[in-house]
């Protein structure tokens, strides 16, 4: 960097130009990297990174996140709700609608990991050395805060053997120092315990790598898909079944599906009765919300057409088959309808999956027929499971339960765009036309649009049930990581390092033992533990120096 070709010509004498001022040397890339590494290893840097992580997650709590609630994000972007279009555009530029998928969040996570690694490597090395090194001998033991002298008639080696037994019983690591090695010149025991404090802390921090590995494996090799199926129908575990609702991991192969079929034999939902609330709502002419007791899907799983299992899937009770887990996640009504023309030819027969829009109002669309671009028929369906009239005289559903179901079918015809690729619940309302008078049907009924001679039957009202099907590798690692985290956290907070020495000085035909100790944390509780250790030592070696215990 000191190349002459880049430096300006020397300035004239008497004018100390900029080139003459002492500029600090520009660090090379290696120096910069070293410096960055040193900064990243600092605990205060780690703290700032943790704070940044906290701020990022706070943002993600209060700004709707696209992967969690895409509909709200769309509303914010359009300016329908939220702070307005301009702010939403700014949020978008900073990817604040998808904080956890944002590049800067990845960068932050990476920095945290580097910082963690930078902290951990020297700590692990230090801990390794510490645990392998035998406890060091002590000198000047009488200067320590906790020190006690015990006089005994036992010879030094026997007295020390007793002390060693005592310390081992209290789970100290004990090292014997014979006379030449001992710093005091006497035979000595050096003992310590509480290494789990540092060890636990290291385990706790290592658990993050295990958790990360588990999450990465799950994301890369796992699969999550969702599928809705009507009572009596079935789906197969193939990619086609989850179209539009599949999130395969990067390395989950398209042919990784198992191919078994799942038939929904039966779906039931039941509600806690609440006659009191219903009576009040009835009097006021409004719907009553009931708390569901349980949703149960009874399914039969078939392998190659042969039934292998019949099981119940409920909320909180997923089932597993061949490495795929099936969860109960949602449900709805799927009225079966049959549409026939005036000559009796069946144009359409299907169970239409309805979606709840508003309290207990279920809507959907049956795309009946597309003869050509301009000649198409669709039915717009509205189901009230417990039909009645509200205080305003408008139809409503009194409860979510199918006690008195009514299906309203509105006929649309003309150019509905059914031949185009549009979502299942939509059609072209602009160019289409509708008949003013809808058909109102109850289950088992058939109605006729008089002008056209089109008949609509509503033979039955089955449910549809929504499942999540997922393949979840890496779960064991996540559980192990969680266990490791807790197993490390507890000793890292509650283990305390203590060091104790017992020095045996030959004293006439007996021994004078010096018991001394140091606590590195929680000194007060150590005082009590030390006193009890001293008491035990006295009584076991038969203290002859201590004043006789006062007897009553």
């Amino acid at each position, binding site marked *: 960097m000191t190349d002459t070709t880049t430096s300006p010509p020397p300035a004239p004498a008497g004018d100390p130009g900029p080139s003459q001022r002492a500029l600090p040397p520009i660090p090379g890339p290696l120096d910069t990297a070293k410096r960055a590494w040193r900064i990243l290893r600092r605990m205060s840097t780690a703290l700032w990174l*943790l704070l940044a992580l906290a701020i990022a997650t706070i943002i993600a709590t209060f700004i709707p996140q696209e992967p969690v609630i895409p509909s709200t994000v769309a509303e914010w972007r359009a300016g329908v709700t939220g702070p307005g279009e301009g702010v939403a555009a700014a949020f978008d530029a900073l990817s604040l609608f998808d904080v956890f998928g944002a590049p800067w969040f990845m960068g932050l996570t990476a920095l945290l990991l580097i910082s963690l690694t930078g902290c951990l490597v020297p700590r692990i090395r230090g801990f390794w050395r510490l645990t392998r090194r035998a406890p060091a001998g002590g000198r000047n033991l009488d200067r320590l805060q906790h020190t006690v002298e015990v006089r005994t008639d036992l010879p030094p080696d026997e007295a020390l053997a007793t002390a060693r037994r005592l310390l081992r019983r209290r789970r100290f690591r004990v090292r014997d120092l014979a006379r030449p090695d001992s710093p005091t010149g006497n035979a000595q025991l050096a003992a310590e315990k509480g290494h789990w404090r540092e060890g636990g802390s290291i385990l706790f921090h290592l658990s993050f790598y295990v958790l990360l590995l588990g999450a990465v494996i799950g994301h890369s090799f796992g699969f999550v898909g969702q599928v809705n199926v009507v009572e009596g129908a079935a789906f197969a575990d193939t990619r086609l079944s989850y179209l539009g609702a599949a999130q395969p991991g990067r390395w989950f192969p398209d042919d990784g599906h198992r191919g078994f079929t799942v038939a929904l034999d039966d779906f039931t939902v039941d509600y806690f009765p609440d006659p009191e609330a219903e009576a009040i709502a009835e009097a006021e002419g409004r719907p009553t919300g009931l708390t569901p007791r349980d949703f149960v899907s009874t399914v039969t799983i078939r392998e190659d057409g042969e039934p292998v299992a019949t099981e119940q899937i409920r909320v909180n009770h997923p089932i597993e088959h061949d490495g795929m887990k099936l969860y109960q996640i949602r449900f709805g009504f799927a009225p079966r309808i049959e549409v026939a023309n005036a000559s009796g030819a069946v144009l359409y027969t299907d169970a239409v999956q309805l979606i709840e829009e508003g309290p207990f109002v279920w809507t959907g669309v049956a795309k009946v027929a597309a003869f050509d671009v301009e000649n198409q028929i669709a039915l717009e369906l509205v189901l009230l499971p417990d039909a009645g009239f509200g205080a305003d005289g408008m139809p409503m559903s009194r409860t979510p339960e199918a006690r008195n179901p009514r299906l309203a079918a509105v006929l649309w015809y003309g150019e509905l765009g059914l031949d185009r690729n549009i979502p299942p619940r939509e059609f072209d309302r602009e160019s289409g036309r509708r008949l003013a008078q809808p058909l109102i049907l109850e289950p088992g009924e058939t109605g006729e649009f008089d002008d056209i001679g089109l008949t609509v039957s509503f033979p039955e009202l089955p449910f549809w049930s929504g499942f999540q099907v997922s393949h979840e590798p890496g779960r064991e690692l996540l559980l192990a990581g969680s266990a490791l*985290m807790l197993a490390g956290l507890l000793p890292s*907070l509650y283990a305390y390092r203590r060091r104790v020495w017992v020095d045996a000085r030959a004293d006439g035909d007996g021994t004078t033992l010096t018991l001394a100790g140091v606590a590195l944390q929680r*000194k*007060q509780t150590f005082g009590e533990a030390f006193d009890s250790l001293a008491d035990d030592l006295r009584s076991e070696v038969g203290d002859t120096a201590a004043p006789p215990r006062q007897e009553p």
Partner: protein
Amino acid sequence: MVDAQLAATSDTLFNVAFLAYIVAMVAYFFRLAFTKVSVAGVPVSTAAGQRVGLVATIVASAGAAAHLGSLVSLAMAVNRVPWANMYEYSSCLALGTVVVGLAVVQRRFGYGHLMGFVLALAVFSMASALLLYAEPGPVVPALTSYWITIHTSAAMAASSIFIVGFAASALYLVKDTAERRLAAASGASFSGSTVGAAYAGGTDTDARPEGHLEVDDDEPVVGAIAQRDTLSPIAFPVIPFIVVATFVFTVWRAPLATLLAGSVAALLGIATWYAVPYLPPAAKLDSLAYRIIAFAFPIWTFAVLAGAIWAQEAWGRYWGWDPKETGSFFTWVLYAGYLHARSTKGWRGRGAGWLAVVAFVALMVTYYAVNLFVVGLHSYAGV
């Protein structure tokens, strides 16, 4: 289904407990006013102070017993755990706070004269429970799992302990400020009695204050009283009023509740100002806060992990950055930051203390704001 008789009993006992906590809080504050803390941190009470303190302890314990009765009868009335909505959860939090205060702050550490502040936080929880009152009833299938016992009770236990920890952290910051200002004013070189003293083990932080002696009530504790003069008597009621009133108003939009809660907070602030000389030394408060938070942190960690396991069972994914999950995560990160900060140069002492306060605010936001404002999978737990 719902046993109306038992539900009514539960409501009555709740009100009894609420009243008892208020009475106990006032009595504890009286006790504080009759207590001087010597330079060594030993509280010395007058005879009257001791009597009031005894009354406060009895009333608070009786309140906690009635409160437990309220929760048990509620559980029997609805035949499930009594913490499935925000009313019940807030009520449990208040009981947890009182029990932790009595068992840990008063019995274990011997700081009975700090209990007024703990009770005040419990009273706030009780008041929020009343504002969020919901008729007892059954719960949705997603909540009928044994995990509601494990995950929710762990979260509740940790939160109650964090609440007590917040009282200690906040009082530490106040006392520390007073000590510093007094030292600066008197020209003494202040060595920073608080700077990580507990962690570094410089002082005997575990000393259990004992020995309530008879003292002359009129004898001033020289020097300590001057601490009060270093603090502004205006900021102390005004700041809590603004903070609490803003919070209550944004959450409930109820002017009367806002005014009431704000006034109580202002009273609490001025009580803190008055009590500054009688508080234990900052180093001891710092140590107390650390011990309490370090106790709650593993429980909170467990609660978050158990929540992830439950989410896997109920929703088919262990972590989806649902607002509640995100909230519990940032609370965890901030408390983890606090634990690290206490052993980091430049952060020890006040930096860590502020971090503890921020972490507590995060906990409150996670509980109240996320449940009430943000739509997420935990939304059914609202009201």
